[in-house]
Structures are given as C-alpha cells and as structure tokens.
C-alpha cells in the first residue's frame, strides 16, 4: 500500500488536516505537525512495531472534532478528586481545561502550575513545548500536535518542592458522536526540585472516544519526579499515550502506569538519560478482560554512564483480552556501569486470553549489569492448593493470588488515597473475575 493510500484511509488524518482551533495560540505547532503528518503513514500490522496490535477500534470509527460530537455535560466529577490535591488539581473534560472544577491554591515557593493556555507566553513554555517530543514516524503524537488546543503546565523553579501532589484529572463524557481529545502535559522541574504528579484518565460513561495524551517532562539536575499515571477510560475508548521524560545528572524520575480501561490502549513511555548518575523507573500494571487490548511499547535509553533503571511490568489477562509488551532497553557505547532491571510477568487467567511479550535489549557498552526476563503463566496449582488447605474456597484462593500478583507494582505509589484506590481497583478486578468462573 502506498503512503498516500495509507494517509487517505485515515479519518484522523483528515481531521487533523483541518485547522479547527481559531486561536492564534500554537498555530505554528499545529501547522508544523500537519505538515509532518502529510508525510507520515498511519501504522498497520506489517510494521514491526505494530504487528500484534489490532487497530480496528480506531480505523473503523468515524471520529469527529469535539465541537461536532454533541458531548454530554459532565457530572459527578468530584468523585474523582483526591483529597491530597485539594488546592493542586487541574481538571479537563474531554481534553478541555475546566477552571470551575480545578483547584489551584499556592503550592509552595517556586511552584507554578495551571492551564497551559494561560502560560502561552511563559519563557519555559516557549522553550520546551513540543520540543521534547521525539517519536519517529509517529502519527499519534503528530495528531496531538495538529489538534493542540489545551493542556496542563507545571514548572518548578530551582529548589522548589511541591507541598502536595498535583492531580491532572481528565474526565471524558459520553457523546452523540465519537470525538478525539488531545491533551498535553508539560512538566519542567528545575535543579533540585521535587514533584509528585497524579495523572488520571477517567471515562464517565461507556461510549467510544479517543484520547491521545502527550506528556513532555524535563527533569533537571538533582530534581525528583514521581509520576503516577492511571488509565481508567471507558470500556469502548481508545487511549494512545506518548509520555516522554528527559533525566539530567543526579535526577530521578519514577513513573507508575496503571492500565485498567479502554477497548484499545497503546502506551509508549520513554525515558532518555541526558547525563550521569540518574535513577529512573517505568513500572506498569495492566488488568484487562473482555475484548480489551492493552499495548505497552517502552524505551529506556541509557546514554551516559552510572545510570540505574527499573521496569517491572505486570499484566493480568482474562476473557478474550490481549496484552502486548515490547520493552526496549538501549545502552549506548559510553554508558558504562549501567544497572538496568526489566521484568515482564504475565498472568493468564483464561484459555482465550493472549499475551505477546518482547523484551528487547540493545547493549553497546561492555561493563553493564542488565537483567531482564519475561514470563507467561497461570496461577500455580500448588499455591491454590496451599490456600485451599488452609480453608479458603478455590475462588477465594485464586482471588487472593491474583491480588497478590498485582500488588507488587502498586506498593511504590506513596500517595495514600491513590494507593487505596488502586487496591480497590485490583480487588474489584479480581472479584469480578472469580465470579465469572472462567478461570483455569
């Protein structure tokens, strides 16, 4: 298939090609992205990076701009507010900032956060917005650029410490026609600053919509960022995310991505090492069921010596669900003394579920420690018997073991209400599954 045919085929290309936002703001970014899009094909399964992913939930849907979608009004937003972020909450509905639902009190000296549009002229925004994106031949980050209209901005000045986690809450409502949301998050943490972000995507109904969140994160020398990403989109939604972080000397970036929702999700987290002595994490937990497809393609790019990285990606698959994992670890020639850990563990609860996993290590340095592993398994009958012999029913034993399997990945989420919420979500998933009796 020719490039032009591919481009024509995608409704999204047409959508992105039309200038929808009348604002002057970011016209250049939109134009630049549109121009790049005209040279970029929509992915298909003959491309290695997409060979396992069924994109029909995208290609078979007529998405329209939000303005034409007939979106329903939002209700019950406060259910999703976390108490720790009272005063530090940015709320978006269908990708658009909502001042009346947000809560932006002072958060400590040198901590600036709010609606990205309001900071259009901020020199930090001018310097970094859209500049940190680095996804080759990627239509989805280009769609986000071509349709860029709103987002969240967080800037920590040198030595600034955010006193509370900042919640970036995305709510998506039902609508008459499927719409596309393209939220953007720009985070710049200057030297020795400290920040916790809770990014939460919630589908309020059960309709089809597509969200293409992009986040650009810059972690400067000695700064620390703890980034929790919770995806609980509607069961018919499409979620394609592009979170990229750059880590400078002595900095730390720890991301925990929890994938629960969406009919189709494709998450491509990337961390790029920009100097020595860094420490970063890209952990993930995926709990899927029914016809869900959850795809994680990650890149951890070690470019300098003395880095430490950690990726524990745990997946539970039930029903006809399909999980895909490709974890790329690059260790460049001069990146000696790297200590990198990667593990992908998959728990298959049904006969119909499917898991594709591909750890991918490309190491060009000769003095590094890289451990990696991938396993796909069922619950261990010996463990089930052990718990049963202690009086638990078979269902309860399986529920407890599934819960225990998932728990390890959320232990490091330190925000109390979010940790509790995640435990509830894991419990709800395991309980729903033990009732189905589909288990092996």
């Amino acid at each position, binding site marked *: 298939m020719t490039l032009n045919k591919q481009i024509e085929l995608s409704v999204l290309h047409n959508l992105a090609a039309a200038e929808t936002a009348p604002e002057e703001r970011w016209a250049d970014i939109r134009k630049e992205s549109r121009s790049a899009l005209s040279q970029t094909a929509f992915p298909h399964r003959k491309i290695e990076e997409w060979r396992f992913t069924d994109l029909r939930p995208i290609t078979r849907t007529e998405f329209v701009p939000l303005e034409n979608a007939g979106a329903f009004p939002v209700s019950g937003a406060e259910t999703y507010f976390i108490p720790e972020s009272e005063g530090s909450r940015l709320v978006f509905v269908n990708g658009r900032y909502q001042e009346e639902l947000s809560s932006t009190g002072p958060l400590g000296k040198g901590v600036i956060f709010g609606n990205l549009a309001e900071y259009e002229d901020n020199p930090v925004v001018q310097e970094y917005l859209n500049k940190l994106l680095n996804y080759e031949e990627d239509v989805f980050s280009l769609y986000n650029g071509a349709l860029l209209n709103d987002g969240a901005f967080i800037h920590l000045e040198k030595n600034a410490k955010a006193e509370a986690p900042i919640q970036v809450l995305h709510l998506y409502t039902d609508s008459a026609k499927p719409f596309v949301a393209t939220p953007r998050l720009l985070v710049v943490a200057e030297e020795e600053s400290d920040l916790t972000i809770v990014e939460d995507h919630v589908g309020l109904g059960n309709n089809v919509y597509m969200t293409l969140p992009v986040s650009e994160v810059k972690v400067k020398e000695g700064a620390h960022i703890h980034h929790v990403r919770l995806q609980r989109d509607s069961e018919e939604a499409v979620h394609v995310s592009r979170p990229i972080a750059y880590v400078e000397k002595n900095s730390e970036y720890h991301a925990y991505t929890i994938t629960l929702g969406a009919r189709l999700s494709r998450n491509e987290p990337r961390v790029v090492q920009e100097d020595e002595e860094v420490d970063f994490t890209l952990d993930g937990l995926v709990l899927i069921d029914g016809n869900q497809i959850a795809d994680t393609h990650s890149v951890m790019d070690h470019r300098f010596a003395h880095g430490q990285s950690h990726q524990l990606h745990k997946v539970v698959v039930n029903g006809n669900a399909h999980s895909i994992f490709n974890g790329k670890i690059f260790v460049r020639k001069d990146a000696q003394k790297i200590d990198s850990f990667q593990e992908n563990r998959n728990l298959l609860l049904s006969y119909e579920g499917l898991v594709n996993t591909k750890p991918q290590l490309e190491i060009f340095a000769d003095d590094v420690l890289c451990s990696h592993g991938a396993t796909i398994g069922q619950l*261990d*009958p*010996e*463990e089930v*018997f*052990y*718990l*049963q*012999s*202690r*009086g*638990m*029913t*078979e269902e*309860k*034993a399986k529920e*407890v*073991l599934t*819960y*225990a*399997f998932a*728990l*390890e990945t959320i232990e490091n989420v330190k925000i109390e209400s979010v940790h509790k919420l995640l435990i509830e979500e894991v419990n709800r998933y395991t309980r729903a599954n033990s009732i189905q009796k589909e288990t092996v």
Partner: protein
Amino acid sequence: MLELKDVYAEVEGEGIEILKGVSLTINKGEIHAIMGPNGSGKSTLAKVVSGHPEYEVTQGDILFNGESILELDPDERAHAGIFLAFQYPVEVPGVTNTTLLRESYNTIAASRGREELDPLEFDDYIREKLDLVEMNPDFLERSVNTGFSGGEKKRNEIFQMAVLQPSLALLDETDSGLDIDALRVVSEGINKLHTSEDAVILITHYQRLLNYIVPDFVHVMRDGRIVKTGGKELALELEEKGYDWLDSQTTVNGEVK
C-alpha cells in the same frame, strides 16, 4: 477418626499408580508415624487425605469421623478439621501471615461452630500462639513464607496449625531441613498442641523426630503399601537395620501374609 479402606490412588490423568491399597485406622488421641524410603508414597498419602487435586482415588474409601471425604474439596476438608503441614510450604508474596490466618481461622471457625474473631481479638489470639513456636511477631506482617528460611517455613506451618486447631494434623516431613534447636522447638510445639481429642500423623524419613514426639504406632511404607506396623520400637529397629531389612519380612498393611 480417620479410616483409610484399601485406598488406591494415581496421578490424575497420567495413570501412574502411587498408592496400591493402603488401609489405616487412626483414633483420636493417637500419634502415628509413617516412615519409609523415598518414593514409597508417604507424601502422596498425606496429599490424598487432604484432597490435593493432582491425585485421584481410584479404589477404596477415606472416612473422616465416619463419613467419606472423597468428594470434598481441600477447603471443605480443612473446615472438617484436617490440616496438612507441607513438606515444601508455598510462598505467597503479597499476602501477610495475619491476613491468611484470619481468613482461614474465621472460615474454619464458621463451619465448625466456633466464634469468629474480629481483627483485635484475633491479634491477641495469635500472639499467644507465636510463643509456642518461638516465632518473632515480625513474621505476622510478612508475606506468607516469602523469603523465609527452610526452618522458618516449617515453624510457620506449625504456627498455622496452632492457630487453626485441627482435629487431624498431617505433618509431612516437618523435621526435614530443621537444625537441632529448631527441631526441639517444633517438636515441643506439636507435643503441647496434642490432646486426647485430636490425632497426629507424622511423615518422616528419620527416627530422630521420634525422640521428641513419641508415636503410638509406627507404619512403614514401601511401594505404595504399608508393609509393617509396630510400636515406637519399630522406628529404632529401622534406624539400626535400614529399610532393606524389611525385604525379608512380608507383611501387608500390618497383616502377615
């Protein structure tokens, strides 16, 4: 209390017969030791009684308090009062000892007509049981058996037994992997727990455990059968003469053939 009637059992779906006609009667208040070389079917016997799904009873019957338990799931057998201390206790990361034990205690209590305990009452209850096996209270909040040494795992099994108060305890090689001090602690724990109302089956390779826990009966298994039954002195005789000595003897299930 427990009666095995000519039990034949095989690995489910594989047709490999492991128990080849085991008959055994255990009354309350008794301690029985089952000895025998590797592969003689001792551990299988324990698993079959506790309902391991890997084994299928193809012939014979197992009665517990007069009723057949062959159709009962392992949890239902636990509710009835059967407890298996595992030869290789399973690690369950993410589930703390307290969580497992409270869940177990309360489900078993409910089905045996005992009072369920709330978390505070339960906490008091298990702490007194800890002393019995000289276990550090820290173990309560650790994940079940995760990162425990071999000896700690075995102690934890006896601790669970102390908490759950079974009427029949099957101890599958609880002595293996224990050093002398741990062996003494575990044995004293078992002795303290044993009353005239319950029964214990000790499965072991070695006579040394029986220096601490004195059995009423010793059975020797070979090739899926009980080939000799005697009193505690039989264990000493075996220790001295080895299992080959039995080749010159021909008794099946305690009866001279």
